[in-house]
C-alpha cells in the first residue's frame, strides 16, 4: 500500500520525463548483461513458441477421436506423448527465463544502489542541506526497486505477450483465416475499453491514495498527541475532524473502485463475445466450407484455445504500460542523482596535512552560500594552538558557517584559511577534516554496539583505550551498568539511552580521535541539568591543549574564551574578548545581560 502511495504521489508531480536521458543511462547498466539478456530472450521465445504449438496438436488429437471404436489409439498416444514433452519443456523454459531475468535485474539493482550510494559520499555537503533525508532514501529504495521490478517482471511479460500475440495470430490464420476476422471486432473493442477505463481510473486511484495518505497522516499526528487532546478536552472536535477525512477517503475509494471494478467484467465480456462469435462462425464454416476452407471440430477447438492466448496478452500489455511509465520516471530520478556534480577533487599537487600543531589564521575571508548574498565580509582571525574561540549568537545566526569553511565543506569566495601556515586549499580535504574533531548538538550514533560507536573514526583501538576515554567522559559507569556493557547494541536512533548520554558517547569518541583541533557545539537542549554538568566537565577535559572552536551557549565558556566571534543574521558583527566586547557595550553586551535579567 505504502509503495503504491509513493508511486502515485510522485507520479502526480510529474513533469515531462526525458526518455532519451533515461534510456542512455539504463543501457549503461544493461550492457554487461547483454549476453545473458539475449539468452533469456531466446529461452523465453522458445518457451512461448512451444506453448503455442500445444493447442494445434490438441486440435489434431481431437480430430483423431472417432465415434464408436474408429479411433487410432497409437496416434492419440503419440500426440499425447509429444504434448506432454512439449508442455514440460515449455514450463521449464518459462521458469529459466524468468529466473534469468530476475538475476539480471537484481544485479542491476545492486549496481545502481552501490553507484548511487558511492556517488552520495562524493557529493558536497551542501547537497544534503537542500534535501530531506526521506527523498534520498526513497530514491535508493523505492525508485530503484520500481526500476528493478519492472525489469524483472514487465520486460518478460511484454516479450512473452508479443510472441504470444504474433504466434497465436499466425496459428489462427493457419487454421482458419476467415475466423480471424472476428478479432477485427473484438480486439479494437477490448483495447478501446481498457484504455478508456484506465484513463478514467488512474486519476481516481491517485486521488484515492492521496486521501488515504491524508487520513493516515492525520491519524499519526493526532494519536501521537493524544495527551494534548485529552488535556484540552477536544476529543469530539478531533473525532469530527477525523470523520471528515474518513468520509473523504471512503468517497474517493468508492469512486475509484466503481470504475476500477468494471474493467474485469468488461474484459471478460469481450472474451465471451469472441467465444460466441467464434462458435457461431466456426459452426457455420463447419457446415458450409467457404473458399475451400474446411473446418473440423478439432480446428474449432484449437482456434478457441488460441483465441484465449491471443486476447489475454493484449489486455496484459495495456495494463503494463502504466507500470512502465512509473518505472521510467523512477529511473530518471535515480539518474538525476547520479548526475549531481561531485565535490571537486583535490588539486593534483595537494599535500596531506601532517603533524598538525593547531595554529589557525583566517585572512580577509569572503563567503556567501548564494553568490548574491555575502555572509562573511573580509573576516580575519588568528588563533594559536590551544586557544578557545567562542562563536555566539541566536539560533539561526549562522554560527556553523565558519565551521563549514574550516572543515572545507564549503570553499570561500575570497581570502584564505591557513593551518600551521599552510593554505588549506592546497591540502587534501580528508587530511584537513581529520585534523578536526566535531562534537555536535545533533549527536550522531549509528545502529551498532557502543564500542563500535566510540571507536568509529579511530580505527583499530584496544578495549582499554575505549574504556579509558569513557572513564574520562564520565560515561563508563553507565555503560558497565547496561546488561551487555560495551557490547550493548544501540537501536534505531539510539532510543535506549538518553540524549545526554548520547552526547557523552560522542565526547568519548572525540577523545579517542585525539585531533589537535576541536569543534564543539555546546547546545544541550533537552538535557537535564545534572547531565549537562557532567557533559560540561567532560568537554572541559576534552578541550585541554587543543585549539577549540566552540558554538557557545554558556557564559562560563564565553568568559574563558580567548576570542569571541559574535554573529547576527548570518554576519560576524563583533569580535574580541569578553572584556573588550563588554566595554563596546554593543550587541554582545545586550546578549550577555539578557541571561541575567530578572523581571
Amino acid at each position, binding site marked *: 500500500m505504502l509503495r503504491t502511495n509513493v508511486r502515485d504521489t510522485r507520479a502526480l508531480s510529474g513533469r515531462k520525463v526525458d526518455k532519451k536521458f533515461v534510456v542512455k543511462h539504463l543501457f549503461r547498466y544493461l550492457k554487461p548483461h547483454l549476453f545473458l539478456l539475449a539468452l533469456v530472450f531466446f529461452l523465453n521465445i522458445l518457451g512461448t513458441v512451444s506453448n503455442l504449438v500445444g493447442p494445434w496438436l490438441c486440435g489434431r488429437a481431437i480430430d483423431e477421436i*472417432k465415434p464408436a471404436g474408429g479411433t487410432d489409439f497409437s496416434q492419440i498416444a503419440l500426440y499425447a506423448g509429444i504434448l506432454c514433452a512439449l508442455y514440460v519443456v515449455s514450463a521449464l523454459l518459462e521458469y529459466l527465463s524468468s529466473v534469468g531475468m530476475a538475476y539480471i535485474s537484481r544485479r542491476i539493482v545492486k549496481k545502481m544502489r552501490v553507484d548511487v550510494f558511492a556517488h552520495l559520499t562524493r557529493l558536497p555537503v551542501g547537497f544534503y542541506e537542500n534535501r530531506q*533525508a526521506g527523498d534520498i*532514501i526513497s530514491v535508493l529504495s523505492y525508485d530503484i526497486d520500481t526500476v528493478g521490478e519492472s525489469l524483472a517482471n514487465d520486460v518478460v511479460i511484454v516479450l512473452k505477450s508479443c510472441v504470444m500475440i504474433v504466434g497465436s495470430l499466425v496459428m489462427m490464420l493457419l487454421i482458419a483465416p476467415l475466423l480471424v476476422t472476428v478479432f477485427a471486432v473484438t480486439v479494437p473493442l477490448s483495447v478501446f475499453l481498457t484504455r478508456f477505463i484506465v484513463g478514467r481510473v488512474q486519476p481516481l486511484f491517485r486521488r484515492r491514495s492521496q486521501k488515504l495518505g491524508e487520513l493516515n497522516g492525520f491519524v499519526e499526528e493526532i494519536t501521537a498527541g493524544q495527551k*494534548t487532546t485529552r488535556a484540552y478536552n477536544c476529543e469530539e472536535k478531533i473525532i469530527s475532524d477525523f470523520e471528515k477525512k474518513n468520509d473523504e477517503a471512503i468517497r474517493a475509494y468508492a469512486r475509484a473502485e466503481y470504475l476500477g471494478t468494471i474493467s474485469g*467484467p468488461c474484459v471478460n465480456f469481450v472474451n*465471451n463475445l469472441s467465444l460466441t462469435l467464434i462458435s457461431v462462425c466456426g459452426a457455420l464454416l463447419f457446415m458450409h466450407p467457404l473458399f475451400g476452407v474446411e473446418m473440423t471440430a478439432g480446428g474449432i477447438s484449437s482456434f478457441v484455445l488460441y483465441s484465449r492466448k491471443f486476447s489475454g496478452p493484449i489486455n496484459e500489455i495495456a495494463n503494463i504500460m502504466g507500470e512502465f511509465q512509473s518505472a521510467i520516471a523512477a529511473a530518471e530520478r535515480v539518474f538525476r542523482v547520479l548526475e549531481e556534480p561531485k565535490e571537486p577533487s583535490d588539486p593534483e599537487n595537494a599535500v596531506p596535512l601532517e603533524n598538525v600543531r593547531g595554529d589557525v589564521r583566517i585572512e580577509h575571508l569572503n563567503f556567501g552560500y548564494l553568490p548574491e548574498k555575502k555572509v562573511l565580509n573580509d573576516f580575519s582571525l588568528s588563533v594559536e594552538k590551544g586557544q578557545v574561540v567562542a562563536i555566539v549568537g541566536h539560533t539561526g545566526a549562522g554560527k556553523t558557517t565558519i565551521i563549514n569553511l574550516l572543515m572545507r565543506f564549503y570553499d570561500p569566495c575570497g581570502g584564505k584559511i591557513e593551518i600551521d601556515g599552510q593554505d588549506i586549499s592546497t591540502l587534501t580535504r580528508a587530511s584537513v577534516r581529520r585534523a578536526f574533531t566535531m562534537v555536535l548538538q545533533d549527536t550522531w550514533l549509528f545502529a551498532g554496539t557502543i564500542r563500535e560507536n566510540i571507536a568509529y573514526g579511530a580505527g583499530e583501538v584496544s578495549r582499554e583505550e575505549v574504556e579509558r576515554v569513557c572513564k574520562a567522559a564520565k560515561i563508563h559507569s553507565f555503560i558497565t551498568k547496561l546488561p551487555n556493557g560495551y557490547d550493548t547494541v544501540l537501536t534505531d536512533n539510539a532510543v535506549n539511552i538518553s*540524549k545526554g548520554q548520547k552526547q557523552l558517547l560522542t565526547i568519548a569518541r572525540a577523545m579517542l580521535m585525539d585531533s589537535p583541533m576541536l569543534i564543539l557545539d555546546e547546545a544541550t537542549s533537552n538535557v537535564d*541539568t*545534572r547531565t549537562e554538568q557532567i557533559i560540561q566537565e567532560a568537554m572541559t577535559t576534552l578541550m585541554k591543549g587543543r585549539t577549540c572552536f566552540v558554538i557557545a551557549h554558556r557564559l562560563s565558556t564565553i568568559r574563558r574564551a580567548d576570542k569571541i566571534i559574535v554573529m547576527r543574521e548570518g554576519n560576524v558583527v563583533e569580535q574580541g574578548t569578553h572584556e573588550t566586547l563588554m566595554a563596546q557595550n554593543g550587541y554582545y553586551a545586550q546578549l550577555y545581560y539578557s541571561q541575567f535579567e*530578572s523581571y
Partner: protein
Amino acid sequence: MKKTLKYIKPYSGTVAAGLVLKFAGSVAELFLPQLLGRIIDDVAANDALSSDQKLKYTLILGGVMLFCAAVALLGNIFANRLTVISSGKMTHDLRYDLFRKTSYLSSRQVDSVGLPSLISRLTSDSYYVNQMVARTLRLGVRAPILILGGMILAFSEDAVLACVLLACVPIVGITVFLITRQSVPVYFSVQKKQDEMVQRTQENVTGVRVIRALDKSKFETEKFDEVVKELAATEFKANKIMSLSNPLATLTLNLGLVVLIVVGALRANSAGTVLEFLQFFVIILNAMIALTKIFVVISRGSASASRIESVLDMNTEEEILSLPEGDPELAICFENVSFSYNGVENNLKDVSFSLRHGQTLGIIGSTGSGKSTLVNLLLHFYDAGAGRILVDGKDVRSYSQKELRKKFGVVFQSDFLMAASLRENVDYGRGLSDEQILRALDHAQARAFADEHGGLDFLLAQKGDNLSGGQKQRLLVARALAGDPEILVLDDSSSALDYETDAALRRALSREYADATKVIIAQRVSSIRHADLILVLEDGKIIGSGKHEELVNSCEEYALIYATQMGAERGRETC
C-alpha cells in the same frame, strides 16, 4: 474476527443483493462452454438436421451465448458496485469506532498497546480489513461458484471426464498455496534487509558531516555495499520461489488437458464434449488460482481484524468517585503521592507539597526524576498509587475528566503541533476568537514571527517542521495561554528559547497571568528562580524544596546546578 464481521450486518441487504447478482453473472458465464459444445455436437455435426435448421439453431444458440455474456457483464458490474458500497461503508464505520475508542483510551491503555501499534491499527490494519472484505465479496464468491457450478455441469455431462478435472483442482491449489507459503518468510526477510538498507542510508544522510570529518566514507560505502549485496541475494531467492508458480500452474493445466484428450479418446467421447471440457478446465483452474490468492488476503485481514478488535474491546467508561475534600484555598495539593508506571519500581515516592492560588511552582531535576510524571498525575492521566492529589480542594478522582482538565492550560514535554493553520494549532478545537489567539501569541512572544509568516492563516507542516524549535515552543505556550487557564503547566517549554526571549516570556506570564497558578518545569535555573516554591526532584523523590535563596544554601544538588549554569557569575548576582 466476529466483532469485525458484525460491521457488515447493517449492509447485509446490499451484500445479499450483490451476491445474488454475482451468482447470476457467474452461472451465466458457466453456460457458455456448454452452449459451445451444443453448437458443435448437436447442431453442426448433427446430420439429422437440414442445413436451414442448422443455421437457425446455430444462430439461436449463438444468441443465447451472447445473452449469457451480457448477463455475466451486467451481473458482475452491478455486483461489484454493491460490494464496493458495502465494504466501503463497513470500513468507514469500523475506522470511526476505532478512532473514537482510541481517542478515549486512558494513558494506561495506550501504554499497554503502544503508540506505534495503535497508529498501525488505525492505518494499515483497517486498510487490510477493507481489502479482505472487498476482495472476498468480489472474488471469494465468484471463484467458489465457478468451481462448484463448473463441477456440477461437468459431472452432469460426463462423470469420468469430470473426475480428471476434479483431480487437477487440488494439485493446482496445493501448488500455488505451497509456493505462496514458502515465499512469505523470504519476503519477510527481504523486508528486514530493506529496512536495514533504509536505516543505513538514513544514518549516512543525517551524519554526513561527521562521516566526512572522520574520513569514513569508504568504510560506510563498504558497509552499505554489504547490505545491498545481502538484500539482492534475498530478493533473488524470493524471485526464484515466485517464478515457480506461473509455469507450474500452466503445466498442470496443460497436462490435465492432455489427460482429458486421452481419456476422451478412450471413452469415445464426442469432439464437442472434449471441447466443452477444455473450457471448463480453463474456468475452474483460473478460479482456483484466484481463490488461493484470496486466502493470503484473508489470513492477513483476519490478523488485522483481531488486532483492531482488541482495542475495540477495551473499556473506556469513566469512573467518578466521591471522596473527602480538602482545603479549597489550595490550588494544588499533593499528599504523600507515590506512583509507578510498571508496578515494579516507583517513579514518584512520597511526594507532598501544596500551592495557593496564583502561586508559581518550579520543578527541576534530571531526566527520569519524575517531573513529567508529576504533571501526568496532576492532570489525572494516571491514578496515583498511594496518597492523593487535590485541585482546588477536590480530589482529582472525584472530578469528571472534562471538568478537571478545563482548569488547565498545558504544554507537555515535546508537545505536538499539527499540519494545520497557526490559528487551528493555537485554538485546538476550543472555538476561541482571533482576538484571544492573538493576545496569547503576543504574551508567548510568538506574535512577531507569526506576523512574519503571514499571520494566523500560516500553514504549519506536519509536527510543525517548518518552524524552528524555539518558535514551536512559543506556539505551544500560546496554546496553553489562549484559554486563560486557572492553572498553567509548562513542561520544559522554554529550553529552545534564547535567554532574551525566555526572560520576556517570564515577564509576560507574571504580568498578564498573575491570577493563574503556574507549574513550570525547566532545566534552566533562570526559568524558575523566581518561583514561590521550587522542588528539586531526584529518582522520584523531593530532595529539596523552598525558594531559590533557600535552596542555594540548603540543597547541594540545586547549588551545583546553579553554579554550573551561571558559571563564575554566581558571586555577582544579588537580586
